[in-house]
């Protein structure tokens, strides 16, 4: 098997990288793919918490690269979704515990076994970021409709270009249509115009996310959730299927959105 390694990154913190990784990964596994999630945020691990797997961690990514354990020993099976695994970060170490060459090797090991390897990148552009993108074939950039998040996303796109990740796609997270309508929030068109990259999906602001994150259950497991639906669609698009954007509003927006998709 020759799986795809996708890094999920943003530059800015708090825009939803970890939530997106957990949900996109779960959705991909629900579609029948073998998926592994790597938490590259060494020292500030969260992905295990969001997945509700914290209490199952015995070995972590640093143990693997230091050969304190075998790779299979560190992989945690998800408790709900078949075919989904987590390689947790170490909490007691820092970003320098791993280097890009080790990450590349790790990604290449995992791609033999899995269809999708999702890497949850830490915020920032330093060592942790360099590690996380080292083995990636593709990048997904998470941003929110805030000027600062879009600015950081733009910076990240530039850095990814240098590393040879030429065609990242963007997920706009936490959009609030009523605020966009009032003109208080950047709209999709503004963001895509600045970033000039393909749009992978739009996720509406959803209170369910807070609840599910705290409970350690990805929101994609809830068929009622709008955000969950959006993440399912993103997973579909990652698998190469052409799925229209979630109808966040009435006709008018859809037309606009179609135009944006057409552009990208």
């Amino acid at each position: 098997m020759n799986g795809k390694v996708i890094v999920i990154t943003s530059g800015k913190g708090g825009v939803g990288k970890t939530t997106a990784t957990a949900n996109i990964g779960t959705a991909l596994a629900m579609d029948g793919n073998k998926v592994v999630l790597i938490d590259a945020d060494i020292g500030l691990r969260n992905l295990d918490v969001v997945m509700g797997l914290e209490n199952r961690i015995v070995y972590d990514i640093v143990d693997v690269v230091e050969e304190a354990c075998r790779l299979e020993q560190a992989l945690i099976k998800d408790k709900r979704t078949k075919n989904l695994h987590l390689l947790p970060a170490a909490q007691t170490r820092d970003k320098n515990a791993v280097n890009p060459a080790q990450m590349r090797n790790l990604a290449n090991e995992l791609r033999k076994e899995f269809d999708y390897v999702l890497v949850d990148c830490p915020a920032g552009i330093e060592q942790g970021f360099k590690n996380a993108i080292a083995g990636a074939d593709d990048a997904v950039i998470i941003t929110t409709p805030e000027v600062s998040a879009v600015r950081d996303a733009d910076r990240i796109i530039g850095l990814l270009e240098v590393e040879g990740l030429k065609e990242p796609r963007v997920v706009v997270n936490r959009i609030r249509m009523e605020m966009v309508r009032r003109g208080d929030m950047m709209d999709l068109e503004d963001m895509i115009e600045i970033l000039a990259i393909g749009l992978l999906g739009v996720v509406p602001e959803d209170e369910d996310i807070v609840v599910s994150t705290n409970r350690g259950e990805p929101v994609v497991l809830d068929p009622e959730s709008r955000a969950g639906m959006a993440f399912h669609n993103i997973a579909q698009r990652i698998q190469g299927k052409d799925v229209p954007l979630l109808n966040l509003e009435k006709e008018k927006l859809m037309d606009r959105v179609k135009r944006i998709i057409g552009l990208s």
Partner: protein
Amino acid sequence: MIRQGVLIRGTNEGITVYLHEECEFVVILSELRDKFTNAHDFFRGASISINSGERSITPEEKMALIDLCQDYELSGVEFVTRPEVQNVSQKDPWITEGETLILKKTLRSGQRVTYKGNIIIIGDVNPGAQVIAVGDVAVMGNLRGVVHAGAQGNTDAEVFALALQPTQLRIAHCIARSPDGFSVKKKRRMEPEKASIKEGIIVIEGIED
């Protein structure tokens, strides 16, 4: 009163050192050395032009001046050996000459381009990106970042963009910035515009025909 052998003046074109016509060369040299020493690091990396006015300087003297400048880590010396005449340009004002860098990509936040001539960018310049040119800058796209034309003091330099919305726009020593305020507003249709210095301030206007 001791006559000054050297006079240092900053101009738009940079730093010019004027040499006295009758003063002994040794005096000039030692005075210049004193000035460089007293100025500490001010001259380091700077490029100066030495104007000898009516005075004729021998190749040996020239070498001595160059050596002195190298001792103080100046980056360049240029000699102006005749009295300056009013620089009347015979060229048409709408012709810009010199080397030009053409960049076919979008400049993103954190990226920076500097060039000793003119810069043409075919793409956007996003907020957080910087473009610095000794000559003119033209952006075939949306200019939202920081741009500096005429970076070595050329006040005739201009900035062109299909959509001119820079965070900050500098030409030579003049700085203009975008208006303050919340920027998530409905955009109007952007017209191509140019920025240039008129009567000491940066003026932005449409590009006629």
